[in-house]
């Protein structure tokens, strides 16, 4: 039986500007969808379509103007800020710009996360090495980010998202800075992680990814869902996607 990991219930998000002479921005407009445990979904749309806002709402970085966002049945916007950290421990995040610590080696970047989460030293060492092996960076564990290629940096960022054993990984344009070959590698890595049981939401505007992943795609345009179908694209390009 499928279990709901994320649920958007008629969510609207409006950003109100700080200056009075600017008009508000409608980022999401009455969006509803749900993501089941173990799914790998693509959140597709042009820049400004509302993809990143949707991810920020799941992370609790933003609160909806209207509607509700749930994570594992808990309404995120009802959580006090002090409890938000518990929610985030179940979610791994991957960014386009990697957000790696340049003065730390690959393994230290992973250790940093586990130390921050209060893990014990022996578990930290074991898991850090294990995750580096999963992403194929075991040989580079003592390299600094500056010594890694763009693809390897993103693999390390994925390893960092994976290391706290999250229920869900949110990847925001993870291939935005990568060439075709590295894009494929990252997608394959995310698929591998998904097969291990982790739910993945990948936000992208990359046509290659959309073509190659035959999973559910939620297409956003101007803050609205214009398409949400499972396994309908196969290898055909969908004109509704607007990308």
């Amino acid at each position, binding site marked *: 039986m499928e279990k709901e990991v994320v649920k958007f219930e008629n969510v609207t998000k409006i950003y109100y500007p700080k200056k009075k002479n600017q008009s508000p921005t409608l980022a999401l407009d009455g969006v509803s969808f749900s993501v089941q445990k173990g799914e790998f979904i693509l959140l597709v749309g042009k820049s400004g379509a509302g993809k990143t806002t949707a991810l920020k709402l799941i992370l609790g970085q933003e609160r909806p103007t209207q509607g509700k966002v749930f994570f594992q049945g808990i309404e995120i916007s009802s959580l006090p800020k002090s409890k938000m950290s518990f929610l985030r421990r179940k979610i791994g995040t991957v960014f386009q710009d990697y*957000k790696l610590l340049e003065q730390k080696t690959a393994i230290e970047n992973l250790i940093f996360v586990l130390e921050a*989460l*209060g893990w014990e030293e022996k578990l930290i060492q074991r898991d850090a090495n294990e995750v580096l092996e999963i992403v194929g960076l075991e040989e580079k564990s003592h390299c600094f980010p500056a010594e890694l290629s763009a693809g390897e940096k993103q693999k390390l960022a994925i390893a960092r998202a994976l290391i706290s054993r999250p229920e869900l990984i949110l990847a925001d344009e993870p291939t935005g800075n990568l060439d075709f070959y590295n894009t494929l590698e990252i997608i394959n890595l995310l698929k591998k992680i998904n097969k291990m049981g982790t739910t993945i939401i990948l936000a992208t505007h990359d046509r290659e990814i959309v073509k190659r992943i035959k999973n559910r795609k939620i297409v956003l345009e101007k803050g609205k869902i214009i398409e949400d179908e499972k396994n309908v694209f196969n290898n055909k390009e969908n004109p509704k996607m607007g990308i």
Partner: protein
Amino acid sequence: MFLTIKRILKWGFKNFLSQKESIFPTIFILFLTLFGIGFLLIFKDVAFHIIDNLKEKADVAIYFKEGTKEEEILKLKEMLSQFPEIQKIEYVSKEEALQQFLERHKKEPIYLETLEVLGENPFLPSLHIKAINPFQYERLKEFFSSKEWQDLIDHQTYQESEKIINEIFTLIDWVEKVGIALILVFIFVTFVLITNTINLSILRSKTEIEIQKMVGASNFFVQGPFLIEGIICAILASVFAFLSLFAIFYYFGPKLTYFLAGLNVYDLFVKNSWKVFGLQILVGIILTTISSYRAVKRHLNV
């Protein structure tokens, strides 16, 4: 929990060491604040010691005119002994005054020679009155100002002690006001500098903080190292302030004993060292914690 605290301490020290040069002005101003607090504490004790000493010594001496009869003086003594504010009253005759003088200056022949030149006893009979409180001499002043006694009295010396005590109280008041004003200025500057230092530290650790927040580290864990950084500044400034006071009092204490009514400030400082150091470290930690917390809260609101 122990592991979390250990890591907060470790990262707090790392933050501190990573900006040890820029943190110097902060520690210096905090040092001045805590030095001032410690100094005021000791100064107050010294001043009160001097006042107590003066109170102990303070008395009124009424000198009677040449030829005043002893019976009249003793009658006056009897009357005065009824005053509730008088603790002790002593009659010193002309001869006793001379004896006391000779005894006091027996090793100083110049005084004795002067007396010989005079050829007579120049001392006057007197009453030495000690009040319970040095500020209770007002009534005595009024009493002796009546015509009846003015004819007998040559001069009085009670005003001097009162004047000195009043001057010391004025000095304490002035030093306290100036000291507190200076400390308040230093506290304000400390707040600004600590906030600035922590802001710089937070900016330097921007990506670390972003990652910590993203992976779900607790607010306590994210904020903790910055608070520790402030506390390290407080501890260092307190230690420097305490050691500076120690060195100053160690050097000047014995030299000032004569001027401070026999009090060695170094001994007083050693006796109160825990109180001084405790207060310095407490004030230092409170100041840095409040200012660090404000800076951290503003930047790290999750």
